[in-house]
């Protein structure tokens, strides 16, 4: 026991902190540019930070809570009140205020009128050095029969009227009050009537009526609303099924092709660098361009139809890309993706092949392995690490197929998860459901990566 303790103490003394200091910047980088944005972004999918509004018993921030109403509840507006708040609080975000000026002016009869007028009624002409208004004139009231502006004895439309001013009357501004408007509302939540005060910014008032709704809340809640919205979306299942279908169709074909291409390059035939260039050309073309390219092949007056017509195989062009021929769209997407992204697998496989020493391959040949036996018993097992890297990469990329689908199907007839993310965000302006889709893609990617890595680890354990 004692010895153990001593040895652990010795170990503790040996800790070298230098590498940790080096890690620190990368941790900060990781937190700042990955974890935080991902947490915020994907949080949108499960967290509604405006889910409920808590109502106060008094029109004051410090008052006790009277109850909460969920976002969207219809409410009846019972009363309203302007609360004076200090000027330094007025500039804060999310504080909607109404400003009242204390003025002194002469009315049409030459009487001096003193009192309060809402900021909206005064055009400020002069300000002092501190930026506070000192003089102005009464605005004309457009479209209203009565051109007179009421001056109240208090900064409040319910107060006593102290006098009336004509439009364009010169006023001296002696003081100003900044008011926050509170509404007293009554609404129902789960058959319970809740009544209380809330700031005006949370309430949407319907026109000139005394009804409105809770526009947004001030307390957040976890919600499955967006997830269920996503699952119940009419495009969800088609998108998911198509995404997985494309993965299953694309990846095996790509791997077989990539391995064959890599073996062709590795055979060191004459002009093998030409092969490499030709094989990797699609890597340099953008996904959308590839989609458009294959669209121009499959479209009604496209290359394929004109080829078939010139060779006399068909008389009238075939409509490949239509809602009635979804399978043709899938085939076109499959071809485009295989054409576009096989070479990235090939590049990985080629680099893996180059790591296999010539002598090992010669040994296999010498000890009697035919070409197929060499591939099966030596090359493929030794390529396993590269193949697993390629598999992870390809699966993740297959989940992100987007532009090719858009180009070939327009995004409605055949749709994939990435396309739905885009549709929710840009078309429906629903960032939350878009985040839910994005989170789903992330989850599938991570899940597949974990499965592949597990496969590697279990083999290493077997090896150990």
């Amino acid at each position, binding site marked *: 026991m004692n010895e153990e303790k001593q040895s652990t103490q010795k170990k503790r003394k040996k800790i070298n902190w230098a590498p940790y200091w080096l890690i620190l910047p990368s941790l900060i980088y990781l937190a700042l540019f990955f974890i935080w944005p991902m947490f915020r972004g994907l949080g949108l999918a499960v967290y509604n930070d405006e889910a409920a509004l808590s109502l106060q018993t008094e029109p004051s921030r410090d008052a006790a809570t009277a109850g909460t109403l969920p976002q969207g509840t219809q409410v009846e507006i019972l009363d309203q009140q302007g609360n004076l708040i200090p000027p330094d609080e007025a500039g804060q975000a999310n504080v909607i205020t109404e400003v009242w000026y204390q003025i002194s002016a002469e009315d049409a009869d030459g009487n001096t009128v003193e009192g309060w007028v809402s900021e909206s009624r005064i055009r400020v002409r002069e300000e002092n050095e501190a930026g506070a208004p000192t003089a102005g004139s009464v605005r004309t009231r457009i479209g209203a029969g009565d051109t007179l502006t009421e001056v109240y004895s208090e900064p409040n439309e319910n107060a006593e009227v102290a006098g009336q001013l004509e439009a364009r009357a010169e006023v001296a501004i002696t003081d100003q009050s900044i008011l926050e408007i509170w509404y007293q509302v009554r609404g129902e939540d789960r058959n319970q009537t809740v009544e209380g005060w809330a700031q005006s910014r949370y309430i949407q008032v319907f026109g000139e009526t005394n009804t409105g709704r809770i526009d947004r809340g001030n307390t957040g809640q976890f919600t499955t609303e967006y997830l269920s919205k996503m699952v119940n979306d009419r495009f969800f299942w088609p998108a998911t099924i198509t995404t997985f279908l494309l993965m299953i169709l694309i990846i095996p074909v790509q791997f077989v092709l990539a391995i064959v291409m890599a073996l062709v390059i590795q055979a060191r035939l004459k002009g093998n660098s030409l092969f490499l260039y030709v094989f990797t050309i699609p890597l340099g073309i953008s996904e959308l361009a590839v989609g458009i390219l294959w669209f121009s092949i499959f479209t009604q007056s496209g290359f394929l139809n004109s080829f078939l017509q010139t060779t006399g195989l068909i008389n009238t062009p075939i409509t490949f890309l239509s809602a009635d021929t979804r399978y043709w769209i899938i085939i076109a997407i499959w071809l485009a993706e295989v054409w576009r992204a096989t070479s990235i697998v090939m590049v990985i496989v080629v680099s893996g092949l180059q790591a296999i*020493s010539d*002598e*090992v391959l*010669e*040994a*296999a*040949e*010498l*000890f*009697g*392995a*035919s070409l197929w*036996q060499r591939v099966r*018993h*030596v090359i493929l*097992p*030794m390529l*396993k690490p590269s193949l697993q890297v390629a598999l992870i990469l390809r699966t993740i990329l297959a989940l992100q197929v987007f532009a090719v689908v858009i180009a070939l199907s327009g995004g409605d007839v055949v749709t994939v998860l990435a396309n739905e993310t885009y549709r929710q965000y840009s078309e429906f302006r629903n960032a939350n459901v878009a985040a839910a889709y994005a989170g789903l893609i992330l989850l599938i990617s991570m899940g597949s990566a974990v499965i592949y890595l597990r496969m590697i680890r279990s083999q290493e354990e077997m*090896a150990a």
Partner: protein
Amino acid sequence: MAEIKVENAVKTFGDFVAVDNVSLTIHDQEFMVLLGPSGCGKTTLLRAIAGLGMVDSGRISIGGRDVTYLPPRSRNISMVFQSYAIFPHMKVYDNVAFGLRMRKVDKNDIDRRVRRASELLHIENMLDRYPSKMSGGQRQRVAVARAIAMQAGVLLMDEPLSNLDALLRLEMRAELKRLLAEIDVTTIYVTHDQIEALSMGDRIAVMRNGIIQQCDHPTKVYDLPSNQFVGGFIGNPPMNFMQGQVQRHNGSVKVAIGDFALEPANLYQPILRSYDGQPIVIGIRAENMETLNKPADDALKVQVQVVEPLGSQNLLTVKIGDDTVKVSTHPTFDVTPNSDVWLRFPADKIRWIDREKGQVLYPA
């Protein structure tokens, strides 16, 4: 029967002639060493025999069967590679069994042969391990076990010991020799290490620039090199070469080194007669000179420049004319640098070399 016959083999890489019209016969169950400096074509010749690189012209037969254009697996051969080339993803057992499995040998037979081979190489308790967890020497043993498990008629070895450290190399050298004596196999062993060649081979084929310079028993190659290159390549220190002048005195021939006159053995008199008045190269091995610490009539006086005590011998460096000569003496021979010693050249140990052609002269 696995006699290997190479006839007029030529192999070129672009303009470079790696194997230049080589003919070589290796008898059944013989241990033939291909020796030469790097780039001499020895590995190319071995690979041609293995089928890993086809010859441009010529003929190779193994056991009387023409294999010139057969793939390696149809040649009844096995091979140990320089970098071992064992399969890193297979356990030792699977490595050793690989060739047998490819041949679809019966399972029990495979097991028996794998165990026999691994016992011969003392790796029978490592069969469950992966090569990555093994030392260089152990991997070497796996590579050899894999080769002998095949029980092919021919075993080819391409510098198999060159990746081992000096001590291990010494150990494996003796072990390989023991092992190959136990099994009936014709072996071709490529090396650039002349000690390995001398100690292991039944015969040595010394190669240079794609041409076999000499192919003979190790003692013969050492003692009677066919030319100046072989003499200078084999032996540590290599054979000494000195410039001399053939002179005729009353019907007998003498060779002058400066003022000193050497008396060639009677056997060589007729040949040397034709070199009368011409320069000739004298070749003699370091251990074949007698060192005296006092003058004698038939001894040449030389000044010692360097003394290297090597334990079993003292190696002296002396200057004779413009030539530096290494002389091996008994470790008890007491000598200091800059002192004088006298060298005696036994007539039967001297090799006479044509200066233009570099060929060692043999009595007709």
